């Protein structure tokens, strides 16, 4: 899951986020460990010094390793500098690890191997166990670069790299890895589910991989919170699944601001088409629960009937009408992104936390997901 976006920079962040969204790398933010609005802006300024390695999502900078493995020295040093600032023991903790003559070699978990005798739930369980063995990445530096607009084939290469390097991962990497490990299992459909939530005046982003098989929904994923990642294939409807996430978020005092459901990801790992991340965008705060349920069910039905196509899929030439513009015409049912209660194009107004709650997170902890 991601760190907060500073309320102070929210308007600028929104503009940047909107323009750059198609190129955004991931939903994961990392500012400083003890998040607060003021400290995140300080972290942003600190991040600016390292040019190309920074990423922005909603205006919040975070660290990404873009140079492969072994990790190059500037990225490596930056990781340690960051954790030294975040951890109470600071440089002492860093030196203890870096100067250790001997460090235990972490075991390399075996990549799960699908056997025909395995049931789908067992297979999904094996995949989730594998991800858990990789561990959630709390270091503040994302080790694998994920560009959401990349073709699926490129993302599958990154997933392969994840299995080779065997390092901690975050939520978006887990989605890509989940797609990679479920490729070929045609009875299982995969689609991304993204959440934008608010806590204590800050926005957080998270993504999991929805799975559908034999009339049941579930998820695969990674999160700091165990009830916001994998869910068993027991939900009869997509809305039940999403509401379960909403309930889990409520336990951490997060309010869901947006839910984005993508389209089924093709099983062919070599196609050039990017993943459709946000075919349906819902604002639960503005819609009633019943309306949210209806929209989710409609989308789920449309996906099951396979009548939805990604906007990035090209329309065949035969559908072009003579005498008219040669630019591809959208097909009937080709995706017009459905924004229910259209995204407010004005700078996002952040709900200010009530004064009595402000003391809880001032200068301190933010419940990140």
């Amino acid at each position, binding site marked *: 899951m991601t760190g907060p976006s500073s309320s102070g920079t929210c308007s600028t962040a929104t503009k940047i986020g909107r323009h750059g969204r198609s190129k955004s790398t991931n939903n994961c933010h990392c500012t400083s460990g003890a998040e607060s609005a003021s400290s995140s802006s300080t972290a942003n300024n600190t991040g600016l010094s390292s040019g190309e390695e920074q990423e922005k999502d909603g205006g919040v900078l975070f660290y990404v390793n873009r140079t492969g493995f072994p990790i190059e020295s500037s990225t490596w040093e930056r990781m340690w500098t960051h954790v030294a600032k*975040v*951890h109470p023991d600071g440089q002492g903790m860093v030196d203890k690890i870096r100067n250790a003559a001997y460090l*235990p*070699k*972490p075991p390399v978990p075996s990549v799960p191997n699908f056997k025909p005798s395995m049931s789908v739930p067992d297979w999904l369980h094996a995949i989730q166990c594998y991800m858990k063995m990789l561990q959630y990445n709390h270091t503040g530096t994302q080790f694998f670069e994920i560009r959401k607009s990349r073709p699926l084939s490129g993302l599958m290469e990154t997933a392969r790299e994840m299995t080779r*390097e065997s390092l901690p991962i975050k939520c978006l990497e887990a989605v890509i890895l989940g797609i990679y490990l479920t490729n070929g299992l045609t009875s299982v459909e995969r689609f991304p589910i993204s959440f934008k939530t608010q806590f204590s005046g800050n926005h957080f982003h998270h993504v999991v991989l929805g799975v559908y098989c034999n009339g049941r929904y579930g998820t695969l994923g990674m999160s700091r919170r165990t009830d916001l990642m994998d869910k068993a294939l027991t939900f009869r409807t997509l809305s039940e699944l999403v509401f379960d996430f909403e309930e889990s978020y409520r336990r951490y005092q997060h309010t869901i601001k947006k839910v984005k459901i993508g389209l089924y990801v093709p099983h062919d790992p070599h196609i050039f088409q990017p993943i459709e991340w946000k075919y349906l965008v819902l604002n639960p705060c503005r819609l009633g629960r019943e309306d949210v349920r209806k929209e989710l069910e409609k989308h789920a039905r449309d996906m099951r009937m396979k009548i939805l196509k990604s906007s990035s899929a090209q329309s065949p030439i035969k559908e072009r009408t003579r005498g008219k513009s040669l630019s591809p015409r959208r097909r009937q049912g080709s995706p017009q992104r459905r924004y229910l209660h259209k995204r407010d194009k004005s700078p996002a107004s952040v709900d200010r936390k009530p004064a009595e709650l402000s003391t809880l997170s001032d200068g301190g902890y933010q419940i990140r997901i």
Partner: protein
Amino acid sequence: KKHFRCNEKIIRQREFVYNSELLLASEVLASSVCFLPCVQFSCSTRTTTVMEPACRKDKQKQKDTPNRGDRAKQKSAQQELKQRQRAEIYALNKVMTELEQQQFEAFCKQMQPQAE
């Protein structure tokens, strides 16, 4: 420089060499020529560099071998570095995970009385 075949080389050695010591040396060199990339014979009139096809291959091999050797060493060093980095990452991740857990629990405790 001229290149000769092995048999021709032995014959020509003897033609060019006048000094008995050199004659002995060249015979020794000729017999072991296959193991050397290049054998140089000097005589009073000219210097001839003899290269054997086998020697050419050996020379090529010796040229490649240092590169291959270097590459193998580099690869091995990279592997070691990756392994060390991985060990440090997981050690760090353990510490940061514990920190996150502690902070979360402390936050929840702080929240509880307020909720009550």
